[in-house]
């Protein structure tokens, strides 16, 4: 505990109080095993094994190009959209192999929502953005849609700001609002897992703080996997942290453990800002 000057550790928390989620007492929701991923000839992920626990925030950290986005996009099969992307190994969601032959990808993506690095609301009204998912999955009744939209806005801490502006164009919102709208849009299909790929990297500090608060509130009901470049952010909000380097999972442990006493010297170098 000698060289962690640059990282503020919340005082009250000690390692002893941590939930024992990595020791196998709790059942994981997502189980990644022996995952190898290739883009054409280039291997982007090397034998990744990782358990992701329900109702926790799991942070993925590591330098650019180490495969964080690639891994997160494997969990909702967005990598299917990349031509020449090959995957070996398995990812189980609640015991079910998501790469199994009969898997309905659209249904998988309903269960595993995603928020992207750059806010990407559709060029439609706020209401239509949020209603897009439910409509896609067959909700037609106006009253039901209204309720879902309101609920999603509430959950994304946008209701007060936007309840009178549902007909406004989503593109007219601020960047931070747009990102929370994207979160609301993802929540509206009632997913189990929320994947967030550097959701605050395009936002100002105040908007960032609001998204972090939101993530902390949402983990009561959702399993969140967040990619972040910002180590303070990982420390502030995540329960577990996985450190990646060159497509390899170097170390995966309780967040405080990773930031205070990492086992691998490469993790140590990274979290102390010596490279990356």
């Amino acid at each position, binding site marked *: 505990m000698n060289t962690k000057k640059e990282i503020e550790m919340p005082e009250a928390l000690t390692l002893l109080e941590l939930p024992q989620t990595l020791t196998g007492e709790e059942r994981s929701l997502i189980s990644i095993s022996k995952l190898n991923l290739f883009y054409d000839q280039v291997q982007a992920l090397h034998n990744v094994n990782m358990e992701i626990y329900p109702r926790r925030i799991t942070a993925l950290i590591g330098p650019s190009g180490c495969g964080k986005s690639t891994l997160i996009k494997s969990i909702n099969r967005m990598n299917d959209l990349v031509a020449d992307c090959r995957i070996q190994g398995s990812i189980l969601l609640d015991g079910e192999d998501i790469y199994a032959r009969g898997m309905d990808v*659209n*249904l998988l*993506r*309903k269960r595993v929502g995603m928020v992207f690095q750059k806010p990407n609301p559709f060029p439609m*009204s706020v209401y239509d953005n949020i209603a*897009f998912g439910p409509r896609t999955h067959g909700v037609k009744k106006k009253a039901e849609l209204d309720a879902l939209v309101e609920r999603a806005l509430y959950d994304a801490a946008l209701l007060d700001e936007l309840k009178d502006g549902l007909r406004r*164009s989503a593109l*007219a919102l601020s960047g931070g609002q747009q990102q929370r709208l994207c979160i609301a*849009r*993802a929540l509206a299909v009632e997913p189990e897992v929320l994947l967030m790929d550097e959701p605050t990297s395009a936002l100002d500090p105040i908007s960032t703080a609001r998204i972090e608060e939101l993530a902390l509130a949402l983990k009561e009901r959702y399993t969140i996997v967040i990619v972040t470049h910002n180590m303070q952010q990982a420390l502030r909000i995540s329960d577990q942290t996985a450190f990646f380097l060159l497509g390899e999972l170097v170390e995966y442990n309780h967040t405080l453990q990773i930031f205070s006493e990492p086992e691998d010297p490469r993790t140590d170098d990274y979290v102390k800002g010596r490279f990356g």
Partner: protein
Amino acid sequence: MSGGDVQSGAGALRSSAGPMQEDAAHRAALRARGAAFVQRSLVRLAAVLTLAILLSIIAYIAVMGLPHISGDLFSFSYNSMNLSLMPALINTLLMTVLSLAIALPLGLGAAIFLVEYTGRSNRFVQIVRLMAETLTGIPSIVYGLFGLLFFVTALGWHLSLLSGALTLAIMILPVILRTAEEALKAVPDAYREGSFSLGAGRLRTVLKVLLPAAIPGILAGVILSIGRIFGESAALIFTAGTVAELPESLFDSTRTLSVHMYVLASEGLHIDKAYATAVVLLVIVFAINMLSAFVASRLTKGGGEGAGHA
């Protein structure tokens, strides 16, 4: 000019370096200013010339045509006394609607297939694209001859509205295909990702997210096509003929406004009426452009400012 101020400002800053350098810097600044002036003047001259040529054509047509616009030019049926343009006008609209009704679904469907359903570097896509590009450059008379051989003769549809419309549809198909393709490609991938990540399938993504965002571009292709249809005469003379009456069926010969003008002008007896017709044609084309700009802005309102290209 502010550009000049900055240049001399830089010269003044450098003056502490000594009189020699100051002199050189000053000369360089002067040269740069001179070059900028010449460039600006050339560009302006080009713009003014273009505008002047366009305006003088319009003015010339107006002067020649306006005095000859009269009530009977718009009477419902044509005879050699009134030389009414009304049947031709209605035929033009019919021809336009018919050609678009054939070419738009085909072209749009093909564009969607090429952009959304095949790989971007797909061999087949490249061949189709090359063909479309080639077809856009072919003179319309070639389409006319094809229509004559195929629709008029081989299929036995005679010189008719249908033969003409199909010929025009083939002619504008590559235009619609290419513009719709470009419009779809211009829709940011972030929209596709957003839609797929919510569990929407490809078709739903195309219909509900991508097409609405691409509408301005698609509409541009439609306007371009309407322009080509309105301006076409060669291809139509060979396929739709020159009958100056309203058709009673798809298999009747018709003449559009352009063909009408061509006939009037080539007969040489009614040049004044040809100019009057040209004025009407100009006004209509102008109106169509305004209308489609209005429709485009209306359709993209839901997306607010900068819709589709955020």
